């Protein structure tokens, strides 16, 4: 159907970004194909060591899912995207396919090593999240392709993550965000780590140096500071109404440190609640 409608047709996967863009005439699709009437595209299930999330699963459904809660970083993200109204309509597949540099899901899914199952005329293919986003608002999807499913590998024992985003108020996109996933050998020794930053580059920034400061190391306060410093150095933000370059880089440093502390506490089995933070109400 998408192929028949041509390149200017777009998929409506909730509309919480696309409809505002259309009102501003920043998007002028020739036709919309609404996936909201395909209820079987919304699901969360555990299968073959993966959590499989249907593309049309609303953020609110992930927020409320006991299955998704087994991977707390998913809850951190889902529970804080925009506000209740937007979470009731917006979908994970829509967010991933849009690839807005300020989107919340991409940094989290990169930290988790997730995959995206894409569906096109020639069938289904699975693309690693790290290869899925090519540029700002640009993915490997062709005009007649869809996201069908997000596949998150179930983290190993002693593996835990956290996502913290800072935004000025609930309905807006974050100023900066940090997704951290650590896999511990024991209480102190870190076997593996991933640090991914949102909003501070045209695509999510995989802070490899920050992860290297943790991987194969005993996690001391010094190692945490080194990782936060490395993440700050990796951030490449644009100055805008949300803040200057320096402000955003300092924000990244704080967010990474705090997300890391939350992830480490969770890896020890502690219950920690983090999510988006904003001033005001």
């Amino acid at each position: 159907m998408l192929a028949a409608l041509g390149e200017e047709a777009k998929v409506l996967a909730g509309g919480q970004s696309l409809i505002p863009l259309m009102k501003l005439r920043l998007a002028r699709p020739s036709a919309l194909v609404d996936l909201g009437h395909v209820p079987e595209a919304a699901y969360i299930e555990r299968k073959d060591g993966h959590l499989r999330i249907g593309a049309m699963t609303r953020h609110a459904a992930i927020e409320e899912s006991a299955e998704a809660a087994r991977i707390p970083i998913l809850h951190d993200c889902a529970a804080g995207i925009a506000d209740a109204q937007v979470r009731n309509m917006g979908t994970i597949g829509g967010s991933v396919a849009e690839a807005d540099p300020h989107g919340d899901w991409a940094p989290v899914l990169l930290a988790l090593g997730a995959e995206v199952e894409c569906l096109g005329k020639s069938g289904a293919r699975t693309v690693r999240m790290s290869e899925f986003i090519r540029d700002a608002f640009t993915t490997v999807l062709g005009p007649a392709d869809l996201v069908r499913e997000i596949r998150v590998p179930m983290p190993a024992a002693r593996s835990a993550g956290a996502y913290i985003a800072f935004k000025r108020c609930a309905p807006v996109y974050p100023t900066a965000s940090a997704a951290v996933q650590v896999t511990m050998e024991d209480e102190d020794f870190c076997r593996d780590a991933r640090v991914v930053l949102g909003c501070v580059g045209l695509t999510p920034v995989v802070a490899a140096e920050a992860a290297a400061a943790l991987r194969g190391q005993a996690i001391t306060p010094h190692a945490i500071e080194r990782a936060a410093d490395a993440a700050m150095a990796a951030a490449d933000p644009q100055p805008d109404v949300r803040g200057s370059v320096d402000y955003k880089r300092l924000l990244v440093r704080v967010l990474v440190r705090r997300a890391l502390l939350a992830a480490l506490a969770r890896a020890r089995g502690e219950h920690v609640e983090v999510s988006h933070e904003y001033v005001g109400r």
Partner: protein
Amino acid sequence: MSADNARVRVRITVNGALREVEIEPRRLLVEFLRDDLDLTGTHIGCDTTFCGACTVLLNGKNVKSCTVLAVQADGGEVTTVEGLEQDGKLDAVQEAFAECHGLQCGYCTPGFLMSTRALLARTPHPSDAQIRKGIAGNTCRCTGYQNIFKAIRTAAGGAGK
């Protein structure tokens, strides 16, 4: 679309009554409610998915009707502020907002009422943090929110201190 003004038929149950209307596919849910059904209690505030004045319930969930196409609600159930009152009796949330004066100019109030309805359906006795999160998608430029919190606590059966 072959023609820009091609119309489609939607069937949406609004406040318990099935409404069947031919609309342009581009029609927003809030336009459908206000202009086609004359249910003007739902307000358009910012029209940019920010302020929440247009909040209605779609299949029991609060959504911003300025950011939902009417065709997305096809086959669904919508409740607007006009649907809160039952048999001439105000809903508990409306009573509480009146009693606690949870409003000043009143423009944002329909949206707050609908978000509160959705919040209390999910969380009958919310903590202050849950109230804060529940209404974070609604903006009031008058009250400073104190009396709105009071009203929500009262509607939930707590002390409206």
